[in-house]
């Protein structure tokens, strides 16, 4: 599924939801292909603090460093629908998204009442 660049920019910074409606990041950037003279095509969604580097000057670089600088690439073909949010076809772990939440969860679950 290829999209015009207008729609691509229209989903920038939107919330990503996985198949189950779980929040797993924002659309931090888009990978666009197409040289001069060719129609630009969104090929992937880029997610993660590492992507912030290029988007906000030095503040972005500091924020990226503070947040741990990881990056995940989600192919555009994985987008199921674009409504208020961008819904993906599979679950978050299958894309490598939401890993920090998954890593933290076992520690929190050790405390009573964590799963009320």
């Amino acid at each position: 599924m290829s999209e015009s660049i207008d729609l691509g920019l229209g989903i920038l910074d939107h919330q990503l939801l996985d198949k189950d409606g779980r929040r797993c990041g924002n659309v931090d950037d888009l990978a666009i292909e197409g040289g001069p003279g060719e129609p630009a095509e969104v090929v992937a969604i880029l997610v993660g603090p590492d992507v912030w580097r290029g988007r906000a000057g030095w503040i972005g670089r500091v924020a990226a460093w503070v947040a741990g600088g990881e990056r995940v690439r989600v192919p555009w073909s994985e987008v199921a629908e674009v409504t208020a949010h961008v819904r993906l076809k599979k679950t978050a772990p299958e894309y490598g998204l939401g890993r920090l939440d998954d890593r933290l969860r076992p520690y929190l679950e050790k405390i009573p009442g964590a799963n009320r």
Partner: protein
Amino acid sequence: MNKIFGVALGILAAIGGFVDIGDLVFNVAAGATFGYQLLWVVVVGVVGIITYSEMCGRVSAVSQKAVFDAVRERVGFKAGLITLIAAEIVNAMTLTAEVGGVAICLQLLSGLPYRVLIVLAAIALAIVVWVVNFDWIERIFGYGGLCLLVFAVAAVKLHPDWGAVGHGFVPHVDTGNKLLYAYFAVGLLGAAMTPYEVYFYSSGAVEEGWTVKDLGLNRLNAIVGYGLGGILSFALMIVGGALFLGKGIDPETLGSIAMGAQVPLGEIGLILALVGILFAVAGASIDTLFSGAYDLAQFCGFEWGRHKSPAGAPRFTLTWIVLLILAMLAVMTGVDAVKLTEFAVIFSVVALPLTYLPILLVANDKAYMKEYANGRLANTLGIFYFVIILIVALTAIPLMILTNLGQG
């Protein structure tokens, strides 16, 4: 009938939850310095928060996005990041002041050592947030905050010059010390239109799954809840004016504020005042705490929610725990909660345009809002208030310096 009962209860909780430490400090201090002359500023502030809360609720109900989601999408990544950093700094200051305020109240009620109570307060807040269902949190702290109505009774019992009180609702400046007057006006507006409140409100709207069907409820909630809550602010200022102004007392501690109810109403007034302040400030600290966590979660895109179990939103949970610990440590440095409150309110005023401009833009954006975009009334009010917010934001820090933090 049941629904009306539910709405009424919700409004009661909103009234009790309206007042936070900034309102307490600035309203009583304004009364003690200028009597009833600044009452009209409180009205301006209340209408302002009603305007923007209604807009936020509408944005969230129609677009299914909380304010910070919309901020990043609408103003872009860089401006969104700057807004986030500013919001988190102000939030941290406010939270520290509130946790300090809770510890002070606990100390005035129990007599136990301050340092111990700081840790106890933080732990108690953490346990409440971890274990208690959020609807119950709102009820407990909202109803407890209703004890602050003792200040309304106190205001009447102090026999203020009601003519002068009425005159105070008419905008006028009748003083030689115009700079100090301006400083208090700025502080009162900042205390009424706190940013964390709108972030919190809109996040709640998204979580409750508000849709366009709930727009009427949203409007009612905002108008009645905040409007009646404003009565508490009036009461605080009237008490300040009736009791402290004439005697030349400048209330510098939370305990002094409680005395405003103690003098006309005796021991029971004192206890109700302290309990009311405790619940109002504790409730506000939970709102502030969550607002700080919401902002970060919504900006970064990870899972959040007040109704989620702690393990259901791990990074969100970790965020509020860290924010609470940092606030607790900050309070333990011995910082004066009342002075910090003044700083926090003034700095939040500076950040107000960053908070409210995106809301105004999104509320007008037909792509987000479809046919529910701002009508003429909402836009007139919204733009009017935005101009006020800009002026106030630009003058806040100069005024703070020139008046030496309200010392004149």
